[in-house]
């Protein structure tokens, strides 16, 4: 414990510490000399390309990938073009930018994933320099070409190349440049000698850092902070200028007194830190600069690289991996020599308590008197988070726990969460895993991302343990990891389909929300169709199965799965796919076995492909539907002959279907059409297309009684209907004479009341009266009333001694004019009622 401050160095108000993370597990002969190195932030992997400048085919460069602790993950001989830059994406993929502007993407284990080009212009003028950067939109690539222009892609997963405007006066490579993200836009900051420019999509703006030391004639190096908020510039006079990246404010300027060009420079600033600070690295020397004039200098034994992090800088050399950062506030408070901060006192109290000394009480009292105990606990918990050694963490947490005992109502969450976080962090920091995350970084990247990173490293058991330990919802936690595991598993060629399918299903059995189709897709992509089909069987969402089955050309299965899902659109999709894939015969055969698909396809054809519809009916020998089809088609024909021909086809089909009624009625229709046309030609009346009823009405209304009669007989129209028809037609025509003749022609099958009513409807009362006498006794009253003959109605009602009829008449009598009649009716009613 006494040694906690051993590696602290003061700089102005603050302290800086350098912690050793790992002794590197790799065995590099020449260290990092002459290597192209890329280390991903957040304790990510390291890629090395040895001898990348070699061009002879006999001595190809070697690409190696290691974890942060130097555990080898992959190694292979580089056979592609000359690599200018290596870099990592946010999802732990390695980007190798070649001289010709091609970018190759590899996974963590050296597996080739894809490549893309940075455009023709880049490949023609060649890449001079390149930088890989991260923004809220993903990972980006910026290239400076031989044409002295910058080309930029903000997100390599959705490449939109942007060529930035020209930099005025640029004759060769700029002295230094950097990419930064500002106002939701990626910009390039370029220094050409003492001139500084900002390049965005549209313009190149000359800028001047406020208060830059006048001795400088050139800006030789620059770096942007992790958050893009701050900028540091190193001038040829050895001054480090630090300010905001929008160049509005200067924070400090320090003279390093070293005028040679540095190898690397990086920000070393933690969130909420007390001062801005940057780290500059020369051969064998590392200098930390801050606000004050002093600097901290570290000697370096070996070639090293700096990896900027959110809260510090990692230093990787051929043998060691260290973290340089400002000592966090809580740690400083507690461990600073002679600190009287509450946390420090609590730690001391706990130490004494463990020694069973009464001094523990004295310390505690001192904290409690200032009522700072909860503050002390908080400090200890926080400091534990920032400490790297589990022993120190434990000591601090024990002290916190001890302090908590004397507090009531102290919320436990902070303590509990910190314990959990540290357990996870210690697990991933382990040499074998090699992810040296700080607590601050962990909180920033979230558990989700950490799980992803573990999955990329195929550390599935650890990932699952962490999910379970942190109680991550299954959907985002365990299930997701298992899915990735399964996707990896199905690519293992050495195991048989059966065994893999079984292992996968057993492992994933009770995990919620697993997408088996995704796993199956992976299996298919690695050439294992049979396995993919087996896996798809486990997919509960049949809709999800269909696209892959189609891709694998398992169309019958795809079709039945689509039907199973109930989603008709999906069925249609498969059907349309099959229609294009198969020959017509096979296609129809397949539909035949799937009635649901068949009827949907018929619906489609009905609207889109009439002819296919006919073929389908033909195939099924569905004569009834074929008949209907011809009937429908007949209406589309303008020419009568064609129409009748189609109807004849319909008749044939109806007979085949043994539907005699349809056949006969269709024949009738043909007969009617012919008749209509004949009459049209002879008499010039428009008739074609009318119903039999309408035809007869028309004929009667133009006086062609004979022809109407003929139809009546030929088509065996029921008497009743014909009488109604003729009665109405004549009334419309107001041919009363003919009507009378008709009424007398024989006994009316509909009685004579309709005659009365129809006449009245056409406002001919005298004519109506003619028929009243012919009406049957039951309808007499109604008939009299219809013509407005109250007396007649009364007479009839009384004669029939029908009470309700008498009442009906009574209700129609007017009290003023029919006084007498009413009396008579009332009397009659009374008599009827008596009986």
């Amino acid at each position, binding site marked *: 414990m006494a040694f906690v401050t051993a590696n602290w160095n003061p700089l102005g108000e603050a302290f800086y510490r350098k912690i050793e993370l790992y002794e590197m597990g790799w065995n590099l002969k020449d260290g990092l000399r002459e290597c192209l190195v890329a280390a991903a932030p957040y304790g990510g992997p390291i890629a090395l390309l040895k001898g990348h400048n070699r061009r002879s085919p006999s001595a190809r460069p070697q690409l190696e990938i290691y974890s942060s602790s130097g555990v080898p993950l992959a190694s292979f001989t580089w056979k592609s073009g000359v690599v200018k830059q290596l870099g990592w994406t946010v999802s732990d993929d390695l980007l190798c930018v070649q001289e010709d502007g091609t970018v190759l993407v590899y996974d963590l284990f050296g597996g080739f994933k894809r490549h893309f080009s940075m455009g023709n212009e880049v490949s023609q003028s060649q890449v001079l320099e390149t930088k890989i950067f991260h923004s809220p939109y993903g990972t980006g690539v910026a290239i400076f070409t031989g044409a002295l222009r910058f080309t930029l892609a903000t997100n390599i997963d959705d490449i939109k190349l942007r060529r930035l405007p020209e930099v005025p006066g640029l004759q060769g490579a700029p002295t230094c440049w950097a990419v930064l993200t500002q106002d939701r836009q990626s910009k390039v900051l370029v220094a050409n000698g003492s001139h500084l420019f900002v390049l965005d999509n549209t313009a190149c703006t000359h800028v001047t850092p406020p208060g830059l030391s006048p001795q400088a004639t050139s800006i030789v190096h620059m770096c942007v902070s992790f958050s893009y908020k701050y900028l540091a510039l190193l001038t040829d006079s050895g001054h480090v200028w630090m300010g905001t990246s929008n160049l509005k404010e200067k924070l400090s300027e320090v003279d390093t007194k070293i005028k040679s060009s540095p190898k690397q420079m990086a920000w070393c600033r933690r969130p909420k830190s007390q001062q801005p600070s940057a780290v500059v690295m020369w051969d064998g020397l590392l200098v930390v600069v801050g606000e004050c004039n002093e600097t901290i200098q570290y000697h370096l034994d070996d070639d090293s690289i700096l990896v900027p992090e959110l809260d510090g800088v990692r230093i990787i050399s051929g043998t060691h991996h260290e973290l340089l950062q400002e000592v966090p506030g809580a740690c400083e408070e507690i461990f600073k020599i002679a600190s009287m901060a509450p946390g420090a006192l609590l730690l001391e109290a706990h130490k004494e308590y463990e020694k069973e000394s009464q001094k523990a009480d004295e310390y505690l009292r001192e904290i409690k008197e200032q009522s700072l105990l909860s503050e002390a606990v908080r400090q200890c918990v926080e400091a534990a988070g920032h400490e790297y050694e589990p022993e120190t963490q434990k000591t601090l947490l024990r002290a916190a726990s001890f302090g908590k005992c004397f507090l009531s109502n102290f919320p436990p969450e902070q303590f509990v969460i910190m314990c959990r976080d540290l357990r996870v962090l210690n697990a991933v920091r382990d040499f074998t895993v090699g992810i040296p995350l700080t607590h601050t970084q962990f909180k920033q990247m979230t558990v989700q991302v950490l799980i992803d990173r573990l999955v990329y490293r195929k550390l599935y058991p650890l990932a699952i343990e962490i999910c379970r330990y942190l109680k991550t919802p299954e959907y985002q936690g365990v299930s997701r990891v298992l899915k990735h595991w399964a996707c990896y598993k199905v690519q293992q060629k050495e195991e048989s389909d059966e065994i893999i399918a079984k292992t996968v299903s057993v492992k994933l059995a009770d995990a919620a929300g697993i997408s088996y189709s995704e796993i199956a897709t992976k299996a298919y992509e690695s050439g294992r169709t049979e396995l993919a089909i087996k896996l798809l069987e486990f997919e509960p969402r049949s809709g999800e199965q269909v696209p892959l089955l189609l891709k694998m050309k398992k169309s019958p299965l795809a079709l039945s799965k689509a039907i199973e899902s*109930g989603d008709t659109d999906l069925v*249609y999709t498969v059907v349309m796919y099959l229609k294009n894939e198969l020959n017509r015969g096979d296609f129809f055969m397949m539909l035949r076995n799937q009635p649901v698909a068949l009827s949907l396809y018929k619906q489609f054809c009905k609207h889109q492909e009439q002819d296919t519809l006919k073929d389908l009916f033909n195939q099924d020998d569905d004569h009834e539907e074929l008949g209907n089809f011809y009937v429908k088609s007949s209406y589309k024909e303008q020419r009568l002959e064609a129409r009748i021909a189609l109807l004849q086809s319909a008749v044939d089909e109806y007979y085949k279907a043994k539907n005699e*009624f349809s056949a006969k009625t269709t024949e009738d229709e043909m007969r009617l059409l012919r008749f209509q046309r004949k009459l049209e030609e002879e008499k010039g009346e428009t008739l074609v297309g009318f119903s039999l009823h309408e035809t007869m009405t028309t004929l009667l209304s133009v006086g062609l009684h004979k022809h109407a009669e003929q139809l009546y007989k030929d088509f065996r129209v029921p008497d009743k*209907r014909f009488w109604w028809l003729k009665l109405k037609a004549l009334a419309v025509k107001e041919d009363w004479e003919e009507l009378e003749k008709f009424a007398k022609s024989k006994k009316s099958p509909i009685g004579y009341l309709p005659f009365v009513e129809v006449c009245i409807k056409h406002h001919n009362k005298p004519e109506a009266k003619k028929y009243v006498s012919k009406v049957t006794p039951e309808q007499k009253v109604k008939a009299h009333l219809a013509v407005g003959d109250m007396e007649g109605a009364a007479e009839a009602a009384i004669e029939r001694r029908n009470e309700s009829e008498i009442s009906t008449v009574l209700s129609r009598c007017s009290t003023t004019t029919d006084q007498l009649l009413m009396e008579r009716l009332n009397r009659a009613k009374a008599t009827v009622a008596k009986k």
Partner: protein
Amino acid sequence: MASHLYCGRVNLNILREAARKDLREFLDKCSGSKAIVWDEYLTGPFGLIAQYSLLKEHEVEKMFTLKGGRIPSAAVKNIVFFVRPRLELMDIIAENVASEDKLQPREFHILFVPRRSLLCEQRLKEKGVLNSFTNIDEYILDLIPYDGDLLSMESESSFRECYLENDQTSLYHAAKGLMTLQALYGTIPQIFGKGECARHVANMMLRMKREFAGSHTQILPVFDTLLLLDRNVDLLTPLATQLTYEGLIDEIFSITNGYVKLPPEKFAQKKQGEGGKDLPTEAKKLQLNSAEELYAEIRDKNFNAVGAALSKKAKIISAAFEERHNAKTVGEIKQFVSQLPHMQAARSSLANHTSIAELIKDITTSEEFFDSLTVEQEFMTGVDTDKVSTYIEDCIAQKDPLIKILRLVCMQSVCNNGLKQKVLDYYKKEILQTYGYKHILTLKNLEKVGLLKPQSTMRNNYPTIRKTLKLWMEDANEQNPNDISYVYSGYAPLSVRLTQVLARPGWRSIEEVLKMLPGPHFEERQQVPTGLHKKRQPGENRTTLVFFLGGVTYAEIAALRFLSHMEDSGTEYIIATTKLINGTSWIKSLMDNPEENLP
């Protein structure tokens, strides 16, 4: 604005709000000013979700109807198509996009309702316009809240598609809609059903439930039971003329998407001096739902009881207005004035419904209406259903509207479990001769769905069904009903009887009858997460969702509401349907006219 959705037992406004939220989110995705191009069919259903004001708030400046050619010019940044996923509509959209002015390009978006379709996107791709769209999205609008206890998919052709064309798309949407409903109102523990479609929907629901495993909704179930009923289990009810107030409004004037258009004459504002010179010519459009107090009170009454209810209401309202004479103090006057707007609304509502009732009465008192009703009732009670009906014959002879004839003939067939071949052929021939041969396809359709059929060797089982389920009640009380049969003045709708029996004493008591009706009957249980089991308070009612696949009539809804309100019924009903139908609209949806769609 949607107060009618709060009043029921289940707050259906949650569903409406969810739908509105989705709509707003989509509109905001197309940032900037926009014009909507509507698939005309959708405007009605959308009106139930959002008014124009909501669209306007989200920068919708113009609205057009989808049609061929070029979209009218409008100075907007975005053109948004609101369409059903239909191929013929895609062709129109493609034409629209292709003829867009290349110099002033606007951004295009498609919103598919209720679901996006690969088939349609494929069609757009074939037409070479798929890439012209910035956003292609779907607006899941399956069950639309229609009233406080009523959800409708507003899918007109659902019955036709399911039973005639064997296209079960609307059932898929129904199942999806039920899943949405369960996401908002909790898992429904019990599912009952009768009929092929019901079985299919239940199967899909159970399957979807498995698919969503892992994303359980932690919501206390609001519904206890779901009852799925196929329309073809009860083909009779929609054929009968509805005799409730709302049912008659629908039969006579037809209610569309919650609105009715009425002849304007009766609603003319009577102003002094004008003497009715300028009668309005435009139809009077009224919204009908339970937000209107008076309407909620009378909509489900038998029409014969409406007159009394209206005059009682009239007395109450005029008494309320008389109150002003009693108001002496300033305080009293102030109170009177504060109630005035409410009273005036009540008065105008009363005036409207009095006018509507008069319009209906003109029809219900006609001899024609009476005769036809008499025949309907004869059929329903099984009188002479096996012979040619002289009444129908006369109606054909006089060429009454075809749909009226079809309704009656179908009813006779249903009530007789099919007609004798001779009788059937006679009717068919009469219809074809009178109304034209072209209707042969319609007749075939009616036969296909079972509305018309030749008698099989099987015994006519309708009388057994009628007796067991008490479908005919001699002494139906129209004024103070004690049984659901009041909605048809004697006939108790079969569908609702099934629902009633299910609640008590249960379907086991009518196994025999269930077997006579088409399709399987079934019961399923859905696991409810532990801790979400409802603890019912003593006296608390169960809530049952009755889903009519293929449509429901207003009279059936009235009957279910009657059951909900009945003392000691123990169950309250929420109704869902593919569409609100009546005999006329139903038969119309099954007709085929080959002369239509001709070039």
